[in-house]
Each structure stands twice: as structure tokens, then as C-alpha cells.
């Protein structure tokens, strides 16, 4: 972590010292990656922006307590992840409004429906839906490691857990996703066509018939409130 002028740490120091622009600069510098975490975790742009905003305000206020043990970006990521988890919990605390309806209503409230064509692609939607059925800790680990390609070590730091914990969360999450996503990969759609391992496409059929039974569609678990460590 560079400490020089213009470094993250320097920006944060300026912010703590009262520079009114410094934090905004920090946000702009890292917003793409932070946004990626939020949108991949929450799927809905409005929710993601809400979480990101809450996280940034929280970081703004907590900046004094940042001790520099971790990189500023790691610290920001951690706050964003926690804000996203809060958001997920708030969502699941409102069971009578299904996620889809809720997002639609939010979109309507924001006067904008189907904002981003990229997010509405069928595969993305299905993957997002499948992800949401995982326990939160697994979901977040997969977002960081598989979707956004963070090294396990960095994900572990962001999540504040051991690397082995990240690995096993990812492993359990992938195993749970297997039956949920198998149909996407055998449907011959975009995902299958672009798969890095064509072999996987053929074999997914076998999984659908055999292995799928162990992780069949009924094994969908509700979002688990208790599965995340306190943070």
C-alpha cells in the first residue's frame, strides 16, 4: 500500500483531517470494484446503490477508527460486504414481499424499470436467483472469489475469516449451486457455449440425472439468518 501523496491512505488521512473532498475522491477511485461486489451480492441496482451508500457513509464516519492494519480498499470492501449482508437480512425479514416483487416495486418507486439490460439476461438472472438461495456466507464468498475473481487471501481479509474458511464456503456453495445451474449449462445457451470446459457441458446431463438427486431442487434452503458470523 503506497503511502505517498494521492495514495488511498493519504486520502483517508486528508479526510480525517477535514478535507471535504477527500472521501468523495476515494469513493470514485474504488467505486467500480465496490459496486461490483454490491450488485453481484444484491442483484438489484437500487438495493446495491443503497447498500453502497450506507457503506460509504459509515466508512466516512468511521474513518478515524481505521488503523491501517489492512489496506484501505480491503477495509472499504469489508464495510460494503457488511452493508450488503444487512440488506439481505432486511429483505429476508420481509417474507411477504418476494424478492422479485420487491425489486420491481423499488424500480417503480425509482421511476425506472429494467434499468440495465445486462442484468436482465436470463442466465444472469438465474445465476443471481440461485445464488440468493445459498446461505449468505457462501453467497458472499462466491461473489468475491468466483464472480469477481478475488484471490482467496484477499477475500479472507475482506470477510475477516481464515482462508480455509473461504475455501470451504466456496466449496459448499458450488456444490449447492450444481443442481440449480445444471440446466443452464446443458441448455446450449450462451453459458454452455462459452464454457471454458466443453466437457463439463456433456457431463452435466449425467449430473442432472444422477448426482442431481442428492442436491435436487427441493434441497433449496431458505436464506439462513444465522449462518453469518456477527460482524
Amino acid at each position, binding site marked *: 500500500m503506497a503511502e505517498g501523496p494521492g495514495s488511498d491512505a493519504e486520502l483517508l488521512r486528508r479526510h480525517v483531517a477535514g478535507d471535504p473532498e477527500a472521501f468523495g475522491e476515494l469513493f470514485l477511485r474504488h467505486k*467500480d470494484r465496490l459496486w461490483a461486489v454490491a450488485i453481484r451480492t444484491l442483484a438489484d441496482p437500487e438495493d446495491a446503490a443503497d447498500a453502497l*451508500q450506507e457503506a460509504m*457513509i459509515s466508512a466516512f464516519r468511521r474513518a478515524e477508527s481505521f488503523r491501517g492494519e489492512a489496506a484501505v480498499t480491503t477495509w472499504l470492501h469489508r464495510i460494503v460486504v457488511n452493508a450488503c449482508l444487512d440488506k439481505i437480512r432486511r429483505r429476508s425479514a420481509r417474507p411477504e*414481499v418476494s424478492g422479485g416483487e420487491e425489486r420491481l416495486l423499488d424500480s417503480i418507486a425509482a*421511476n425506472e424499470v429494467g434499468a440495465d439490460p445486462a442484468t436482465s439476461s436470463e442466465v444472469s438472472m438465474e445465476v443471481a436467483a440461485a445464488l440468493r438461495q445459498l446461505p449468505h456466507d457462501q453467497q458472499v464468498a462466491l461473489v468475491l472469489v468466483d464472480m469477481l475473481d478475488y484471490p482467496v487471501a484477499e477475500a479472507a481479509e475482506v470477510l475477516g475469516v481464515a482462508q*480455509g474458511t473461504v475455501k470451504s464456503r466456496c*466449496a459448499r456453495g*458450488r456444490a449447492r449451486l450444481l443442481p440449480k445451474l445444471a440446466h443452464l449449462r446443458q441448455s446450449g445457451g450462451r453459458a454452455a457455449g462459452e464454457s471454458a470446459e466443453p466437457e463439463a457441458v456433456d457431463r452435466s446431463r449425467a449430473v442432472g440425472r444422477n448426482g442431481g438427486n442428492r442436491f435436487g431442487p427441493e434441497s433449496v434452503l431458505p436464506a439462513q439468518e444465522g449462518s453469518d458470523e456477527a460482524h
Partner: protein
Amino acid sequence: MIGHFSAEELASYRAGAIDADRAARISAHLADCARCAGVDSDLAGVTALLAEVPVPPMPDRLTERVQAAIAAESQRRAAGLDAARAGEALTGSTSLDADLAGSPDGVPPQGGRRSPVPLRARSRRRRTRARRSIWTSPLVLGGLAATGVFAVVVIGAAVALSHGTLGPESTAGSQPANSRPLPAPKQPVGGPARQSNNAVGLPSAVQVTYGTASGRARSALVYASGRNFTRANVAASVRSTVSREGMFGTILNGPGSTPSPQTPPTHEHSQSRGTAPAAPEVGGIRVGQIAGCLSAAAISNGVLVVEIAHYQGKPAMIIVSKLIGKSYRVTVLGLRCSASQADVIARITVPKAR
């Protein structure tokens, strides 16, 4: 072939999350077992699929929204510093006037008088179970309002209501909540109430976060109306309040009902405020007490709206929360309520039917 490995074991193997002995056994097994090898490569396919999902760029509109929130926070901080330097007694009360109907561009009014919460108090760790923050989230609330599924709880408020607006003479009878603009409550402490809303005089509202028994944080919109709920009018009042056209929708969207996402002022209420100014209040009731009441009332479905008002002529908190099913539920709490005692005056179920 002696059995197979589960997908989870194979995934753990792939992730390097198992010990060497087990890994060696799985490795040997995979060489011989087409089925497990297939699952193994399917697991690689899962990772590949996840990696392929594109990340949509952050829409400019949302980027600007977050930037505006940061800028507003910066202004508040600067104002807090200025005020501290000037040695002013900070009133705190004005900071809670959520500017819900004004500033359509999402930027709170300039001048920074609105959030004198000192930095010292803010920077302290306050991750308590009943974390109390106050902010507005029009989007989320908008979505919920549109569902029309609420429960209402009325908490009796026996203290500190501002008489000017909340006196018994302000009885609204059976008048629906949205039939006319409601007067904003007078702020009991500090300078002039900041009537930050637009010309029609909507009440200020804040969002209060409170903790549930299970340790979750939930939040509710709180505003002071001073009107009088009675057994006879409660159903109509509640329905109109939660309707899109009613108070709830009006607060969210402004009187013109033009949805305009706004950057909510963000405020936090901390119990360890040190030399902080008077605690934030709504309708003369400390936000901390409101949060405590909500926690104590053990409302299982999450409170959405809290109205500081009267019930049968006595000061009360009327809490609207979601309910599973097609009814609103109204709970009335007396103002003696606290974090340790709910002081429930009434629980009323109001069918959604119009």
C-alpha cells in the same frame, strides 16, 4: 466401485479445503470413476458460469446519488466542526428534519445547520444490538408502501409531546390522514423548527433503526402528526396513511407524486454521545426512546411507520408494521413505553379492504 464422493466433498477437494490424505483418496478415485469425475468437472463449470456473469456498470444516476450523499455528509461534518468551533450549543433537533419532499436533486439544503452531531460521537463504535440510526430510504419504503400490507402499533406517549401541535384540540376525528396537509410538529428544543418540506407543509419524517429481540436491526419511518386516532377512525386513517396517495406515498414521492429518488440525510443516534447535544427527537420524543419502544413492543413483522399522535385523546405512538396477510395491524403504545416496557394500549387489526 465402492460408493462415490458427494459434490461437496469433491468441491472441497477442488478448493483445496481438505487434508492431504483425503485429497489423495479423492484424486485416485477420480481417475477411475467417470461419475465423480463428471461431477468434478461440473463443479469447474459452476465457477466458470459464475465468472461469466457480466457486472453491469454502476449507472451514472446511482453514482451521483452516492456522491451526493457523501457530499451532504461532508457538509454536515463541516457544519458540526464550525459549530463546535463557535462554541455553540448544538440543538440536535433540527438535524432530524428529513428533507423528504424538498431538494429533488437529492442534495440537502446547503448551510449545514442540519446535522450538528459531533464527529466524536460519530466515530465511536456503536455496533450495539439495537443500533440506532436515522435515515430515510424512500426507495425501500416506497416498495413496501405499494404492497399495502402493514401492521400498525400505537405506542402511548405520555411525555414531552409538543403542545402546540399535539394538544387534544388537534383532534382530527374521522378525517382521513391525507385529506389535508398535516402540520409539522414544533421542535421542542433548539431554534425554530426546520420546516424543510415544501409549501404544503408535510411533516418531517425520520427513519429510526431499532433492534429486535433476535438481534436484527430493523427500521421504521417516524413522523409526528398530532392527529387523534379513535376506535372509530383508526381503520380509515391507517388505510389512507399507507396508500400511495396518502401520507406515506406523499412523503416518499412528494405532492406531485413524481418519484424522485433522493439522497436521504443520514443521521445516527448514539447512546454514547459524550458532550453531544440534545438527543434527536421526533414530535418531542427522543429517538432513543422510540427505538426502545419498538424493540420492547416485539412486533414480529417489522415496523414501517410510526406516527407520533394521539389515541382516544391521549398522546400515543402509532406504529405501522408489515403483516403477513391482507390486513393492517395497528398497535397503540402509551408514551410511558421504554426499552424495558412496551406500554401497549391497543392492538387493532384493520382489513385492507377499501
